[in-house]
Each structure stands twice: as C-alpha cells, then as structure tokens.
C-alpha cells in the first residue's frame, strides 16, 4: 500500500484528505435521508397506484410532477422508496458491522495473544470458513434461519468475522512482542488485563478501519439477499429489492434499476474509501 515516493502527485491528493471528507459527506446525506425519511419523502413508499405505473423520471416525456425519479411497475414512487431504503441499508450496515467487528476482533485478540491451542482452533475455523463461497454461505444461512433483517445481520456476522479475526490476530501477535507488554507484566498486570488495557487500544485503529469496510460489505450483502428475495418482505423498500424489480423490468422501466443502483454504488464506494483512508491515516509508516 505504501507507494509513497516523494513529490509524486498522488501525495498531494492524499494530503488534501478528500478521501475522508467526500465519502463522509455522502454518508451524511444518506444518514440524514434515513433519519428524516417521513419528513422528506414526497410519497408513501408502499403506496401503490396502478394509474401511475412506470412513470419515467422528471427529465423525460410523460413524467408526472412530484414523482421526481419516476415510479415502478406498481406505481410506487422510486425516490421515496430510495429514501426509506436508506433506513434499512444503514441500520443493517451499522448493526451487522458492529456485531461482526466485536465477534471477529475478540477471536483475533485471543488467538494472537494467547497462541497455543486457542490459536490453533480459531485459525483452523478461519480456514474452514474461507473455503465457503461467501454469497452462497449467506444465502444458505438465511434459508436456515428464516428470512428477515435479524437473519441477514446474523448471517453477515457469522460469515465475515474471519475478516476481523485474521487481521487483528496478526496485529495482536506483533503487539504482544512489544516491550510495553513485558513492562505491564513486570508491573504485575494480569494477562487478560494487559490484553484489554494495553493491546486493544493499539489495534483499535485497524478495527475502526475494518468496521468502515465491513459497513460497505454489509450494505452489499443486504442488497444481494434482497435481490434473491431472502431479506425482509419484498414489499418493504430496500435497495436490493428495488434493484431486483428493476432487473426484471429492465426493458420497460430502466430507472427503477438505475436510481437505487446509484444510491448503493455511492454508499459502498464511500464506506470502502473511508475505510482505506482511515487505514492509511492510522498507519504510522505513512504518516
């Protein structure tokens, strides 16, 4: 990652922090839309009106005032559904990423700090988990647990904990060899106390950067599961179910696919850029 050659034009771009504030701006917009959905959505996201089906967006002939981004095959307002969809996307990404992060980091800390059989068991589990195609694994888990947002969140945590466990395990192993760990031990601190009060704060930056990446992944996984109709009920406005509908109606109403896709694209790009940006910012080598 560290391709820092002095005077390279790239350095100027990274220095201006645009990689941090640009994604933050978009996430802020999406978060505001999610929080204020009932106030700003022009229509009820569930209201069907077959008189208004497949209205094109405002810049095309045949559009209706008030339906800015057009309507879907059931006459539901696309913009309102995107705004309400932001609620589900952000909710899932926040809860799923946090759960995955806590679960995976805890296992990574234990494996990296204690080593021995704990490390062997956890590393073997990671190997087994990595042998599953993630999307198929997610689909299978949701099928087993039943559809619904709870299952989606649980599936993400049950699959992606390995991402945290691998990185945090490696970093903990590095930290555990540092002098400050020895001095804490000489000072009489218990092993577990050293892990929590000395090592955890030092691996925290990586955890936070991974959390951002995971939020982007969670948004995508929820969309994929909605797309194959395994998330919440297909009437509920999620970006994934809108995309599935748009894929079906691609030859009649492309806007039903385009606009939720833009929202999803920007959100995923923002989270991962933010994660990468934070990773570089925290990395002492790159400072």
């Amino acid at each position, binding site marked *: 990652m560290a391709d820092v050659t002095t005077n390279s034009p790239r350095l100027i771009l990274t220095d201006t922090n645009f990689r941090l504030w640009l994604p933050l701006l978009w996430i802020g917009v999406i978060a505001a839309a999610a929080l204020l959905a009932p106030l700003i959505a022009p229509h009820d996201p569930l209201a069907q009106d077959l008189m208004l089906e497949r209205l094109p967006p405002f810049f095309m002939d045949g559009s209706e005032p008030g339906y800015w981004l057009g309507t879907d095959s059931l006459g539901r307002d696309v913009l309102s559904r995107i705004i309400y969809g932001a609620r589900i996307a952000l909710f899932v990404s926040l809860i799923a990423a946090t759960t995955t992060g806590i679960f995976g980091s805890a296992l990574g800390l234990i494996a990296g700090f204690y080593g021995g059989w704990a490390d062997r068991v956890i590393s*073997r589990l990671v190997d087994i988990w990595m042998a599953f*195609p993630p999307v*198929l694994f997610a689909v299978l888990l949701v099928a*087993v647990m039943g559809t619904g947002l709870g299952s989606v969140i649980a599936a993400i945590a049950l699959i992606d904990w390995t991402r945290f466990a691998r990185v945090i395990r490696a970093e903990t192993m590095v930290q555990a060899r540092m002098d400050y760990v020895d001095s804490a031990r000489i000072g009489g601190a218990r092993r577990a106390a050293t892990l929590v009060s000395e090592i955890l704060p030092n691996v925290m930056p990586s955890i936070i950067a991974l959390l951002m990446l995971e939020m982007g992944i969670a948004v995508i996984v929820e969309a994929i599961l909605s797309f194959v109709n395994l998330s919440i009920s297909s009437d509920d406005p999620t970006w994934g179910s809108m995309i599935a509908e748009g894929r079906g109606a691609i030859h009649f109403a492309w806007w039903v696919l385009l606009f939720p896709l833009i929202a999803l*694209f920007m959100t995923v790009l923002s989270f991962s850029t933010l994660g990468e940006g934070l990773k570089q910012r925290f990395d002492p080598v790159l400072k």
Partner: protein
Amino acid sequence: MLLKTVFVRLLTTAITLFGVAVVVFILVRVAPGNPIAMMLPPGATDQDIATLNAVYGFDKSLAEQFIIWLGGVIQGDFGTSITLRQPVAELVLGRLPATLELSTLALLLAVALGGFVAVIGARKRGTGTEVGLDLTSGAVLSVPDFLWGLIFVLVFGVLWPVLSISGRVDPRIDIDFTTNFYIFEGLLRGRLDVVGSTLSHMLMPAMSLALPLAAMIAQLLKQNLKEALTQDYTTLARVRGFSETAVILREALRNAALPTLALVGVQFTFLIGGTVIVERLFAFEGLGNMAIDAVINRDLPLIQGIVLLFAALFTVINLLVDLSYTFLNPRLRHG
C-alpha cells in the same frame, strides 16, 4: 523438507474439507421446514411420509446420518435432488463446466486488463497518467462484482443493446452438446457460431467478475514493476540501449510477476465465489444459479452437493497456489 511441507499442506487441506463437510451437514439439518412433506402431494398419509423418510435416511440419528452421508460422498454419491429427482452428482457436474468456463474467462480478462494497466502505470510513473490510473483502479477495486454486473445490465440492456444480458448461448443455435464445455466443444467441432454466441453471452458476467481483480492486479503488479525498475539489472538493460517499455516487458515483468501470481491464485477463489450472484444476475445456467434455486426450494441434498463442490474447488486451488509458489520461489524451496 519440501516433502514435509507438501505433506503438512495436504493434511491441513483434508482437515479443512472435513470441517466444511461437518458445517454443511449441521447447517442443512437444522434448517426448518420438512423437505419430505414438500415432496409429497396433498393428502399424503403419515405412512407415506415415514416411508420417504426411511428412503432418504431421515429417520436415523444425526451422527448415523452424517457417517452414511459422508461415506456416500467419498464414493461420489451425493444423494438425490429432492426437487429435480436426479442424482446430485450428475446435476452438479452438469453445471460445473459453465461455471468453470465463466471463471476462467474472467480470470484471463482480469490478468490481461490488470497487466496492461500495470505496465502503462509503470511506464508513465510519476506523471498524471499514473495518478489517474491509481485513482481509477482504487475506485474499481471498492465496487464488488454484483454492482458491476448491474451496471453492465443497465448499459447493455438499455443504452447499447449489443450483448445479451441473460442465458449462456443463443437458444436458436441448433447443436447437441456432448460435454457442457460450450466454448471448448464449439472450438473442437469447428462451430465458431457457437463459440461466438457463448462468448457474447459470457462477456458481461465475466467482466463483472474480472474488474475488481483486474484493479488489484494493476495496483500490485505496478508496485512490483516500479521496485524492479530501480534495480541494477534494469539500469544495465537501459545502458545497453533498450527502450523503457522493452526494459519493463523483457526484464522487470519477469521478476515482478511472482508475488502477483500468489495474489491472483488466492483471489481466484473469491472470483469463483462471486459467480454465485453474478450468474443469478445474468440468468447464466451455472452452478451458482442452481445453488440459489436449491436454497429457495429447500433442496437439501442439492445444496450440500454444491457447497461441498465449491469448498473442494477453493481448497484445491489454494493448495495448488501454495505448492506452485513453493516450487517457483527459490527462497522457499530451500527454506
């Protein structure tokens, strides 16, 4: 020493595969819903259900079921699909060629595209072109295959409908395939129309899978090329009068390729994993599409078979990558 490395690696692969089998078995058995009840027509008696339960072995204890199932799997018997009423092994092997062709094409596209961008980036290092390529590959990398697929569906379904966005081959083409490797067989039999139609159906799903990997290759290979270009042997080549492009292609590339190769191997498994949703998106009749149908229909034996096949494919590819890396890298060979 080398033999021991290979042995240990084979052993861990076997343990991983066994673990996968246990996880798949447990997951599928705790799934709610009675698959037997779904197979029978309405009005079936308890006796009918019990008979079918016995046929599928659902009346034995979990441990017994696992041992019977695993014994069958080792002998190539993956059971019978509940919805399609055919042997799982037959169904899965019938779909495997489609997925293999798709992932191989995607891999080739990724290597070609990523390699090309890396060479350009290394050639134009320190200029605005390099910055532009870096930013582009960074953005391309953060967008997963699912979204690329949707973008291609929009572009080629609506804006510029030159490529087909669903299916594997034009249904109007009249040919009886003996294998399910359409491209391979089309080439062998000299049916270029079949090859062309298959390729035009595969291009978009393969591109969706290839783009994130291409971006990764572009970044890593360029980094390694730039390092190689500061070495003495490249300076020597320049002194001998080779052009910068020739230095990159003839000298630097050979040395920069090895670490990139390791990455490509590992990432290839992720690419194969991506086929599941991308095939769904493009209605491509491969394994992944079948897997999602199997999950939706609660076809437990079929799900087990597909997941196991994917897992076996992943672990074997990882094993091959590790071993070939050990053989190719002189430092590890003697280590």
